[in-house]
């Protein structure tokens, strides 16, 4: 499995176990393309542990993604979102850890910054590392798909931030991934561009149907885009919430509001009293979260007073 050449520096036994669990070893579980095994997950992490300097950031985390499933991963800063993503991407060389991790053959990763190489023209950036004969054609098609047709020869610095991020999406999608990992891909964009990018990502997802793991700190973004929202807390998944809303999702939908409230509570963000105080008079658990399976920590028992700056106020 080429994407997991990085060895983990945990105990030899667990490292071996983790490698044996990877699909390269048995060649069997290859996500959606493996015929006859429709239920085979795209990603399966079992008892995943990652440690930095003795501090466990992931504590025996379990995670399963079905093929073609769109999952958003929420969590406060330092909750281990990026650690989990990098583990799944196979980019955590020299990080101590253990556990079993099964990922598909073709995994694409997009970062918070577009990470285009400044010395390569746009098309060369998109097809970087591809060894396929039709790479240039496919790259052009991917650029057209993200709305950058005819910009093949542009230098990255000639593009706006949103355009760079779209080019990065093209670079991720041209590889026809079975799994798309996105680490806060819209975090650095302005609000208007972000709205457009949400539409584009959802559209590209509907067309290509990779499994998506989107790391974000924006609750609205998570509810708007994902089929399932996970909250990572203290190294484990504390909330697993299926979002059952029709797909052009609108934030004005009262059920959208409910999902948002539930997730904010799970994140330990107590809404300011100025915002609809009447809804908060009853016991916190009175309004049952819609279709929610709150697993671990009860949100009510964690009255964190974190700033609500990631929560749009409109």
């Amino acid at each position, binding site marked *: 499995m*080429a*994407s997991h050449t*990085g060895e983990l520096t945990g105990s030899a036994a667990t490292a071996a176990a983790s490698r044996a669990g990877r699909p390269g070893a048995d060649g069997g579980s290859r996500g959606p393309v493996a015929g006859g095994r429709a239920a085979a997950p795209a990603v399966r992490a079992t008892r995943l542990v990652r440690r930095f300097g003795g501090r466990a950031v992931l504590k025996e985390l379990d995670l399963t993604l079905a093929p073609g499933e769109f999952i958003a991963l929420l969590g406060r800063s330092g909750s281990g979102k990026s650690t989990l993503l990098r583990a799944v*991407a196979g*980019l955590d060389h020299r990080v101590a850890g253990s556990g079993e991790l099964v990922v598909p053959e073709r995994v*694409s*990763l997009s*970062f918070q*910054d577009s*990470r285009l*190489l*400044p*010395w*390569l023209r746009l098309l060369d950036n998109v097809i*970087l*590392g591809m060894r396929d004969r039709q790479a240039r054609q496919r790259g052009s098609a991917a650029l057209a798909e993200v709305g950058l047709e005819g910009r093949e020869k542009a*230098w*990255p*610095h000639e593009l706006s931030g949103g355009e760079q991020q779209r080019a990065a999406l093209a*670079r991720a999608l041209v*590889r026809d991934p079975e799994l798309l990992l996105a680490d806060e891909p819209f975090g650095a964009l*302005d*609000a*208007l561009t972000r709205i457009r990018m949400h539409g584009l990502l959802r559209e590209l997802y509907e067309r290509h149907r990779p499994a998506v793991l989107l790391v974000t700190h924006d609750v609205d973004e998570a509810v708007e885009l994902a089929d399932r929202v996970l909250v990572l807390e203290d190294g484990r998944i504390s909330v697993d919430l299926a979002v059952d809303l029709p797909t052009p999702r609108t934030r004005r939908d009262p059920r959208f509001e409910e999902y948002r409230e539930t997730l904010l509570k799970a994140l330990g963000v107590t809404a300011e009293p100025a915002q609809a105080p009447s809804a908060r008079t009853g016991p916190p658990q009175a309004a049952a979260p819609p279709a929610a399976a709150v697993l671990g920590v009860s949100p009510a028992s964690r009255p964190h007073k974190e700033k609500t700056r990631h929560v749009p106020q*409109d």
Partner: protein
Amino acid sequence: MSGTLSDVRAPETAAGAAGLRGTPSAAASPPTARRVRRRLGPGRRVPFGRLLGPVLLIAVWWAASALGVLDPRILSGPGTVLSTAGDLVSDGRLQDSALISLQRAGLGLFFGVVTGVALAVVAGLSRLGEYLVDGPLQIKRAIPSLAMLPLLILWLGIGEQMKVTVIALGVAVNMYINTYASLTGIDSRHVELAESLELNRWQFLRKVVVPGSLPGFFVGLRLAVTSSWLGLIVVEQINATSGIGYMMFQAQQYAQTDVIVVGLVVYGVFGFLSDALVRAVEGRVLAWRRTLAS
């Protein structure tokens, strides 16, 4: 928000935005005359503008000797220098000397660049290489190449081999320091990208390492070119029997300031042209860079 919406002209759109959240800043700002900001970059390029300084320098020199301010025993005027240059060209001394000097500098530069870059690649891309190569070269960096001259003369004699070696040593250190710094300074995020795209070692070298270290390579090359002329001047004035430096050394014995100035001008022209050449190549190769000067 008002900044991103500044080019929205349709009134109904503005009204819609105001209705949504109420953006008073867009409506409240009074219409003012377009104000062009003060430019902080150096401004547009002028063709051949780079020649202004040198031309001015020669003009001052010319004027000073024409007015008799400059004693010819201290420094000959440009007219005398020109006619001396003509004489030196017609009897072939200038071309022969220049050719020999060029050859020395060129060979020294070539061997120095090859060695410096090879060592930088070895040190930059492998840990063992770094441990073996970097220490000695940092030590060598502290010792001026010209200080090695006595030892090199003892080892290699006073022939061409010694001259080229002295030049190459200075060049190699400059190339190594800058290329190595830029190799190790390659953005780790680009390395991570290469890993996530599963580039193999060769692709990684070609698409990330080489282009990423070219800016440092060119900084090194420009310093190296300068240092090759410096080395040349020194080795040609010690035990040489040919070359521009030898020509100047002889002129000193006979107090021929015009010949000395011809030699200086030749060195200057060589230096100027070689730097311009490196710049031109650099501008072409690093076209992707957006800098203050462009």
